[in-house]
């Protein structure tokens, strides 16, 4: 017999309320005070969030957010900065780490969680795929980013689903590696993401989207779901936690050694065309925080550059490691870029990294 999980769908909440609920539900599950849960998240008003270990100052355009009524907060999960408007839908799974069928190795777990949403999207007629390490894409374009955390023996895994997305506001309210780029390149950046409305040509009603996701999650996890609210223990904990998630201490508290967020841009001319590289670097940690590669070369398949960007994200920026990452990528993937070879990409990246020192 399939296990019955709670389906918790509280509707639109403020970002502080949603973040407090993440902690409350995960804590309660860890203490056996709540059932296994699938939750949907919607936000009102719109908001900008940083990942648990990020700093607001480095990741968010605070003045723009203030002017446009965009709330700022910090997630309990990892990952990067993100903008969440009122039309987007979040999904979340909370269960014990030793739930039968859920892998212990994190990368295997990401795949399983994302595959449940991929199946849900399939029920809406969207052919999506898991993109390692933890994104969901349609035709090479990201439609859902995910992240997770754990308390005690329980985990929380959550993701966004871009339904109808305001990409211009996202670019304005987040510190992204494209602020110094030309319009044509910004357009190219916009092509990195897509949304349900764009893929389907229309936006299905939210209820239909949730039903499809619930079916996908139920099938992949082998469970059934029944709508339910917070337990009494969760209600009490929520009242206690909310002020913390509304506090400046939570939102702006820097938990780790200062990070860096250098933007470095390079250009490298090849027989096949110009390669432009824009990198966000954390020099302290010697990490490429994100990469954006454009140019007038032709890559086959077209998505291969976005896949290369994904491979570079959060990878080491030491030259020898960058060389390995790029070479491994071209070994593992069938990519054809006339007039541009592996060394050209390494060289373009090296120029950007070298400028960043």
């Amino acid at each position, binding site marked *: 017999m399939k296990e019955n999980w709670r389906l918790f769908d509280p509707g639109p909440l403020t970002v502080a309320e949603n973040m407090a609920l993440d902690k409350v539900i995960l804590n309660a599950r860890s203490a056996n005070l709540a059932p296994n849960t699938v939750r949907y998240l919607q936000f009102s008003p719109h908001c900008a969030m940083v*990942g648990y270990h990020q700093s607001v100052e480095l990741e968010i355009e605070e003045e723009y957010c203030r002017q446009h009524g965009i709330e700022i907060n910090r997630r*309990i999960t*990892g990952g990067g900065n993100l903008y969440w408007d009122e039309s987007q839908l979040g999904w979340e799974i909370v269960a014990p780490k030793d739930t039968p069928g859920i*892998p212990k190795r*994190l990368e295997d777990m990401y795949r399983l969680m994302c595959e449940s949403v991929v199946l849900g999207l399939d029920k809406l007629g969207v052919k999506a795929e898991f993109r390692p390490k933890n994104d969901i894409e349609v035709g090479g374009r990201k439609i859902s980013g995910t*992240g997770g955390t*754990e308390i005690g023996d329980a985990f929380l895994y959550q993701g966004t689903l871009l339904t109808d997305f305001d990409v211009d506001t996202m670019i304005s309210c987040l510190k992204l590696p494209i602020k110094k780029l030309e319009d044509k390149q910004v357009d190219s950046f916009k092509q990195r993401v897509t949304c349900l409305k764009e893929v389907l040509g229309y936006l299905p009603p939210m209820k239909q989207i949730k039903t499809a996701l619930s079916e996908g999650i139920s099938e992949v996890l082998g469970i059934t779901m029944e709508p339910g609210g917070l337990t009494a223990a969760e209600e009490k904990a929520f009242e206690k936690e909310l002020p913390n998630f509304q506090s400046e201490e939570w939102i702006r508290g820097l938990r*780790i050694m200062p990070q860096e967020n250098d933007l470095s841009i390079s250009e490298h001319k090849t027989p096949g065309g110009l390669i432009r590289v824009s990198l966000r670097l954390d020099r302290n940690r010697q*990490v490429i925080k994100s990469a954006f590669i454009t140019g007038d070369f032709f890559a086959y398949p077209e998505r291969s550059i976005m896949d290369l960007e994904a491979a570079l994200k959060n990878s080491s920026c030491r030259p020898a490691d960058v060389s390995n990452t790029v070479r491994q990528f071209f070994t593992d993937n069938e990519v054809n870029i006339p007039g541009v070879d592996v060394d050209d990409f390494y060289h373009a990246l090296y120029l950007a990294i070298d400028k960043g020192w």
Partner: protein
Amino acid sequence: MQVKNFVIPENLFYDTNDYWIKVDGEEALIGMTDYGQNNTGDILYLELSQGGQRIKQGDRFGSIESGKWVGNLTAPLSGVVVDSNREVESNPRKVNTDSYGAGWMYRLKLSNPDEVGKLMAAKDYAKWVTEQINSEQEIE
């Protein structure tokens, strides 16, 4: 000692949260095992408790982030943090690349040395890792 490709030095103690513990008199050096770092993936951020902090076995004593996952570091023993590895905090990949060496995390002054007796020896940890790997293969 080795299980699959995972190194398990024989002179250390272990727990099921994948920490290794090197006991030296009243102090213990603590880090993440090779198997643990492989399960976690490339580590991007580490937040370690600072020197002087008193912790109890099972307490959260830091956080770790990899691939958008924030995990808790759970103290394998009770004591006072004598030192935390600032270098590994600024370059957490050392946990991936040198988990038993430069990737160490804490030096702890033990407040309850009896707890050491409940940790696993290398051969017991190797058995536990083998069981974990086998159960993962069943899932696949």
